[in-house]
């Protein structure tokens, strides 16, 4: 039985030149496979969104006392049973705000620039509003995640917000 016209011979050619050649047919099929990969990726995002538990409202946690952060100063902290870094900011207006310290662009650490009422990401010159966490400038696509800050006497507590976007 002759193997001359078998399709598999195209995949295992003898000459190196033929082995390196990608025909337009193969390229078109490759595009369809990559397209399938995109569907898979999109499906994973949808599945994660569907199964993730966003009703979770964390308990109040004490970060520090009022005196520990000077005006214009910040304090980094992590919540219990969590590794995500957060930053507590004492603004010049006397308010306290807490945000996730990871930039929404490429997860660089953000910091408060005293006197500007803005949070800066130095990696790609991204800026956020310290009051809302909204993006003011630069490449970040989303606002910073915000925690709810409450003052009880001199003590400062933070808490995950409810499901609604904060």
């Amino acid at each position: 039985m002759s193997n001359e016209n078998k399709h598999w011979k195209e995949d295992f050619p003898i000459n190196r030149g033929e082995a390196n050649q990608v025909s337009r047919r193969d390229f078109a099929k490759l595009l369809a496979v990559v397209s399938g990969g995109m569907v898979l990726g999109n499906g994973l995002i949808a599945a994660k969104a569907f199964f993730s538990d966003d009703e979770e409202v964390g308990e109040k946690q004490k970060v520090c006392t009022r005196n520990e952060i000077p005006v214009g100063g910040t304090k980094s902290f992590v919540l219990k049973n969590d590794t995500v870094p957060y930053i507590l900011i004492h603004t010049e207006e006397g308010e306290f705000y807490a945000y996730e310290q990871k930039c929404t662009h490429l997860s660089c650490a953000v910091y408060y620039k005293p006197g500007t009422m803005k949070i800066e990401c130095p990696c790609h010159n991204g800026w956020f509003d310290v009051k809302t966490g909204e993006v003011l400038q630069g490449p970040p696509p989303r606002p910073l995640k915000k925690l709810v800050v409450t003052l009880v006497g001199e003590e400062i507590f933070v808490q995950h917000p409810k499901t609604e976007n904060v």
Partner: protein
Amino acid sequence: MSDFRTGQENAHPQKKSMIMSTLIVVLLTNLLIQIWLLYTALNNALDGHKEVAYSTFIASLVLFLAGTIWLYFLPKSVK
């Protein structure tokens, strides 16, 4: 009995190149739209807008199926 593809090749033996280029351009366009859908899904899901993740998944799936069916029109390779 000839099907559409055989008929297409018989009717347009000189136009394989054009057909192939068109197919690839359409597939590439599909892929670009899917990349944009993936980016949008990710950003919106992280922002808490889950419904965007579902709708972009369906749109991406439709584009994939369209692209796969599109392959049926690939001209046969020249022996």
